[in-house]
């Protein structure tokens, strides 16, 4: 993907983000933070590629660290968000 296409995505996604997030009510701001945290664990995509490649020991070590950190983010983030939201659901 060329740089301009990437930049286009980046800028448009920021506008989309602003539109979406301003509609989230203050009541849900903490779950929003933990949830968006889990989503930012998308780095796991890059982490998996680095951990599974055959480009040498250093890359795999960095990849392993990245997979561990990103997985904590993803699993911990989604689970704790779910735990909080379940408390808002019951009435």
């Amino acid at each position: 993907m060329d740089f301009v296409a990437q930049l286009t995505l980046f800028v448009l996604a920021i506008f989309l983000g602003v539109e979406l997030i301003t509609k989230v009510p203050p009541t849900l701001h903490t779950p929003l933070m933990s949830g968006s945290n889990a989503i930012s664990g998308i780095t796991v995509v890059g982490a998996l590629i680095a951990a599974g490649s055959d480009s040498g020991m250093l890359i795999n070590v960095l990849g392993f660290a990245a997979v561990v950190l990103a997985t904590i983010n993803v699993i911990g983030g989604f689970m704790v968000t779910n735990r909080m939201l379940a408390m808002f659901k019951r009435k």
Partner: protein
Amino acid sequence: MHVSQNWIDIAYLISACLFVLGIKGLTKPKTAVRGNLLAAAGMGVAAVVTLLNEHIVTYEVIIAGVVVGGLIGAIMAKKVQMTSMPQMIALLNGFGGGASFAVASAEFFRGSANDTVSIIATGAAVLIGAVTLTGSLVAFAKLQELIDGKPMGFPGMKLVNAILFIGSLVGIGYLVVNPGNEMVFWSLVAAAMVLGLFLVLPIGGADMPVVIALLNSYSGVAASAAGFVMGNSALIITGSLVGASGLILTSIMCKAMNRSLTNVLFGVMAEAGDAVDEDEVYAGKVKSTSADEVAMMLETARRVVIVPGFGLAMAQAQHAVRELADTMEAAGIEVEYAIHPVAGRMPGHMNVLLAEAEVPYDQLKDMDQINPTFEQTDVAIVLGANDVTNPMAREDKGSPIYGMPILNVDKAKTVVVVKRSLSAGFAGLPNPLFAKDNTLMLFGDGKGAVLDITTALKEG
């Protein structure tokens, strides 16, 4: 197994859409659980599809990493107490930044960053990711009270930070000209890590909600930068969504605390203003009351607003408060909660703490909704909140908190403040609310006082 790159990219597009739908679900409490599950499904799609990538040849390291990370994440999510949620988020922010930093480093050593754009993106991911990592660890340590919450620093710290930042930019520029220079790369890593420490250490405990929100934003931007390095659209889109989210929450927190972002970041406190003498504010004007008297007042009330502060959560009094509210509702009294944006330790924290005690979320009103209703409120009960009810923010132009948005509890017919003593809050100011004609002080432990009022109300 070999799948064409186009199909992989389409799968990433699907997961990006699921993330957007997931966040959209979070705009209503009713759809929020489903939204979270949609986002998790999006992550699942992205992860599975990545495993088909042609560069992945071994799975041992991946499996080990996923098992270790998954276990740690699951245990953290199960064990964490709701009062400790800010620490948990701080830690997760740090891990997110750390992961992007590690991914960008791996790309650097693989030598895949060889054109100007991807080298700059690698440098940015390393810089922002490492700053997020160490900065979040400091925020975590402060919130967990592993280190002193007071601002820490040394003379010339800002100059050192400026040098570290400019040095990092120069380092990235050097890498553009001389790609693959490992010495420069490691210097960049070291500078970024120290910068993260030095940026958060001078920020006081009271400002941590802003810092967490900002680091949340950084972790998103770091992921986006990693996406530029790898040419991966899912990372770019998702990272910028998270980056925008963190920035919006940062600005909401700054407004609620009446601080500009620059002041928070550089540890500047508001001007001290004219000294206000506590004795002058309080002398002879403070009236104290008893639980029985409050219960009697509540019996004739039609509308009661409860104003919770973090003190209430620290005393684990949420359940006691909900019981009091239930008792009042059973007696036909309308009960609502007034939630100031900084009532907890992070955006929306107080709402979660009350939801945990099974307070229905539609009774939780934010500042803009509840403020016009105080004039029709018979009794406002302030529990463990102080600065956010201080009328000086509205009336006293010389006051350091002048302009801070507050809950106008003093407009209620009667205000009951449950508090141990007349001591000042974070802002270190006396609160003229305590001395108003319509204010009654109920001195004592918050939880005990609430239980006493409930008992008296049930008996009465």
